[in-house]
């Protein structure tokens, strides 16, 4: 199995609602266990990661959240400002120019510009070093936006390279493209569910990222796989009960209906797990459906343990 923890940049991608943040948080914990210095990046989304990591809220400033872990929530407007100040050197000039109403509209009118600075900021952190010249972070884990926006974000460098042939942006973008497409530095981890729509979307996403954008893939995480609650023999009895449909006590019927739902769900899940395995040439890790009302850091711990167990057992094999 691929060792994704020797890369510098791990990007978590997937459809909305599949558990991208949970997997990102679990990967953060795995990296911390390996003694890595981690930067965890959220992108202008609601702050889900701090709850999952059990740390204080992520802000637009990088801050140390746990020993070895820094966390940041990159917002487009803030990132744009930082980048601009870096380019024009003085904040008062920034204010003079960029807080001009017309210029504000202008920069908003070119959405690519916002995504460009978000990506720029991530790759800036990748290059950051301490006073002795060592990288500030061993690994950067990015909880990317849901598929549509996520793809747009990662495709920005190639879009910009074709649109802008020279100048400061061209230089920056060339650099970004190099990092993003370097398999020794970067990996995209895919998160999917064993269900029809997320599975299909993951397959399309994989093809796009790898074939069109040449961004190296990492692992596939199949999240929320419903467990097998019963043996094959027991499943047979549950099915027979359902088809017999005999007169019986309502409580027994209720109990067996619950059993039937679990069996059906498990089977449907299995179909899509198989489909994902068949269509995607990726090392994959199945993660169990978590029976919990609210997600918190204890669940992240559970998921990261599962990932580690899988990685260790298959690493040996």
């Amino acid at each position, binding site marked *: 199995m691929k060792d994704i923890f020797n890369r510098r940049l791990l990007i978590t991608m997937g*459809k*909305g*609602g*599949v558990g991208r943040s949970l997997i990102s948080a679990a990967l953060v914990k795995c990296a911390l266990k390996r003694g890595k210095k981690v930067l965890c990046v959220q992108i202008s989304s*609601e702050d889900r990661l701090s709850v999952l990591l059990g740390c204080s809220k992520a802000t637009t400033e990088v801050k140390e959240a746990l020993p070895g872990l820094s966390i940041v929530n990159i917002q487009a407007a803030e990132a744009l400002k930082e980048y601009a100040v870096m*380019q*024009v050197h003085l904040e008062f*000039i920034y204010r*003079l*120019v960029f807080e001009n*109403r*017309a*210029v504000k*509209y*202008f920069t*908003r*009118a*070119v*959405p*690519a*510009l916002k*995504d460009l600075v978000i990506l720029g900021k991530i790759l800036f952190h990748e290059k950051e070093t301490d006073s002795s010249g060592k990288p500030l972070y061993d690994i950067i884990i990015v909880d990317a936006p*849901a598929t*549509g*926006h996520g793809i*747009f974000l990662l495709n920005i460098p190639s879009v910009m390279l074709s*649109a*802008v042939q*020279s*100048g*400061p*942006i*061209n230089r920056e973008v060339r650099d970004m493209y190099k990092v993003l497409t370097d398999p020794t530095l970067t990996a995209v981890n895919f998160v999917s569910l064993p*269900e*029809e*729509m*997320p599975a*299909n*979307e993951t397959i399309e996403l994989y093809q796009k990222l790898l074939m069109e954008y040449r961004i190296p893939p990492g692992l596939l995480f199949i999240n929320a796989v419903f467990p097998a609650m019963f043996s094959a023999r027991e499943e047979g*009895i549950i099915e027979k009960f359902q088809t017999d449909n*005999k*007169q*019986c*006590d309502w*409580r027994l*019927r*209720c*109990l*067996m*209906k*619950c*059993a039937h*739902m*679990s069996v*059906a*769900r498990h089977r*449907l899940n299995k179909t899509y797990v198989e489909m994902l395995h068949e269509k995607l040439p990726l090392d994959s890790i199945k993660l169990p459906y978590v*029976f919990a*009302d*609210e997600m918190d850091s204890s669940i992240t711990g559970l998921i990261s343990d599962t990932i580690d167990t899988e990685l260790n057992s298959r690493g040996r094999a």
Partner: protein
Amino acid sequence: MAGLDKAIEKCRVIVVCGPGGVGKTTCSAAIAYRLAMQGKKVAVLTVDPARRLADSLGLETLGNVPSRIEHSRFAAQGGELWAMMLDSRSAYDEMVSRYARNEEQKQRILNNPFYQHFTQAVGGSHEYAAMEKIYDLSCNGGYDIVILDTPPSLHALDLLQAPQRMMDVVDESIFKWVIKPYLAAGKLSVQVLSFGSAYILKILTRFIGGEMLSDIADFLGSFQGMFGDFHKRAESVQKLLHDPNTAFLVVSSPSPASMREAAAFQRELERAAYNFNGFIVNRSLYDENCLVDLSSLDFSELFRSAGYPEEMISSVFGNKLKDNWKIYNHISKKFKQENQQLEKSTGKQAALVQIPLFERDIHDIESLMEFAALLWD
């Protein structure tokens, strides 16, 4: 709980909204089928459907124009079902064609490198295209009802105010300050400008590079003269969205967090004076029977009296059955709590519909009809 029939009676536009992955497309398709079967002429506008669902709608060959879906069941009632998949890029191309002053302006916009990025970027442009299209279909399509399956959004206003935000972006004042001087002066002769404008331009050029700046300026500049029409159009779209015959339905998954998000969505809609016509809680595992405590039951006794042989039921199996039931018992209890909260905020006029989790994927007409029957229940 009230079904959908009353809540969307007389409606001419139905907007189906909610976060990603909750089943908006399935709901939209099911509502469309059902209304067509009632003899209505229906158009459903969908964004990014799963392929198999698209197949069941006959959508695989569709683009930016509605195609008719034939089915004997609509024909018998005199109903019609039309469906289309929104393609933002073509929607924008259409708009540019409609408002361009002349062929030259049209071509200049369509060929600008930034036009393409602008039309595929997120952050308002898909939403704007969807709103624009729904207005077009509703006013010019000759349909009784138009249904919009919206792009995923967590916040109602992100979606509905997209037209307004787009207006801000192409505000006339950009011209006065940036575009006009730039186009007039050209990138090498900023010196001829007033001191303020020249300075701003110089910094901007340093920031994004002269070539890109001139491309962007040219792109925005080519829209010149189209703004008045855009503004009028955006106002008409808002008027349609606030019309008493426009219905908003919010789809949610059955998890407590998702149901709370749905309630927040409703509050946002109502605060901004849009109609709210109901919640659809999809893929629910709630079962009233599961609320009763079954943990101390003697199952082997019940199995025997149902006529099953005793050896079929080992104590291991019995315990597994109980453990499994506990999952649904817990889910049902939690769901009931959240649902009571949702009921309170729903009010008397709006619908609150619960759709159970189907054991199979919904991607053929039969399962869609079954789904719709539950919506109308």
